[in-house]
């Protein structure tokens, strides 16, 4: 089982290295273990996360790609779809039926033809357009809806922090 997962992860890594999507770098933390990756995601232009470089960890299950990986930001984050411990909560990280969160039925789900690249691109769109219906971080969802200015201020502070600029 883990043999086919390893083969697939190596192929995905190669693909991501040869054709990296804009603003995304990802690969195994240590080439001895292909089941733990680090990703660096650039905040999308024209959003409150613009300019930030956000590190995250991806952990792959032994039966990947039948089951999806888990993803967790390792820097401070404040976003409606990210738990306070950094775990990312979007539909593509769940197989259909695996979601007590109750995502919209039309939301994109995990299936074995999805890929790391698709996940990371979905995370970039999630940063640009939070879904305030699925509240992994209820405070962030509420502030996004009711006090956008304050939300943007916090996001900007986090952006500066990821760049090592005094906040």
């Amino acid at each position, binding site marked *: 089982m883990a043999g*086919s997962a390893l083969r697939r992860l190596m192929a995905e890594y190669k693909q991501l290295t040869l054709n990296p999507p804009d603003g995304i770098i990802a690969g195994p933390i240590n080439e001895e273990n292909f089941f733990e990756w680090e990703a660096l995601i650039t905040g999308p232009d024209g959003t409150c996360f613009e300019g930030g470089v956000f590190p995250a960890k991806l952990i792959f299950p032994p039966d990947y790609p039948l089951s999806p990986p888990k993803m967790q930001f390792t820097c401070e984050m404040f976003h409606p779809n990210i738990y306070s411990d950094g775990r990312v909560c979007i539909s593509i990280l769940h197989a259909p039926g695996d979601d007590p969160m109750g995502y919209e039925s039309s939301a994109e789900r995990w299936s074995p*033809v999805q890929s790391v690249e698709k996940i990371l691109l979905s995370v970039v769109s999630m940063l640009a357009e939070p879904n305030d219906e699925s509240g992994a971080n209820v405070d962030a969802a509420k502030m996004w809806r009711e006090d956008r200015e304050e939300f943007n201020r916090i996001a900007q502070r986090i952006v500066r922090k990821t760049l090592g600029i005094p906040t």
Partner: protein
Amino acid sequence: MSDSTETDENNKYNPGENQDDLILQQHRKIEKEISESIALIGNKEALSSLESEYSDDDIYRQKVQDLSNKYKSVRRTRPDGNCFFRAFAFAYLESLLDNQQEFAKFKDTKNCSIRGGVNLGFPQFTLEDFHDTFMEVVNVVGNGPSACDELYKLFNNSGYSDYVVVYLRLIASGQLQKEAEFYQNFIEGCRSVLDFCHQEVEPMFKESDHIHIIALSSALNVGVRVRYMDRGDSSEVIAHDFPEGSKVAVHLLYRPGHYDILYPSTS
């Protein structure tokens, strides 16, 4: 399935815990129990092995009786939501072991070429992996009847077996999308065919319905006869052939929520 050592204390609602995670954990636990107790594809058993399951149920006993007039054995599959696809794949490939002419024809079909897969609209990069593993398993059939054990072993190795299931799911999905206009009529609610494929066909462990069976059997041009054994009035176990009027190559037994493989008495 419940763990008797668990006390009430442990089952109390604790708002501090992530309930979603707990539900998923429980799902995993049930799945693990199933996977530890039932093989992906079981051994061939005499049809009478079904009788013991229904010793105190007249309706079902009568139906097993009817079934035993038509079929001599049954092969059970693991009830993990993939049972239709896995049962279909094993039963069909097993039938080709003795029918190398049909096997050669099958290998020539577009679904056995990677080009065909890409034409279904899936990214070549993720598709290749599944296609290659699928073909590895298919090629075993070329060794003839003596390869039966090898086929059985591969189907019980989840690394191969699950990849075969994924590939067949993609073929079914491709067929649904190709004839979306027709299949749209069978989809409940306001979901599009594409959404249906993404949510009910392509993901692993999602159960199969008529629509999956029609799509897969038409795409591969392989006839499937499903015997429906339920609580219905008739004393006969009703059969449906997919696609309608086709030459039947695969016989399956359906009991609510699950498919197993049947072997007719005549062959």
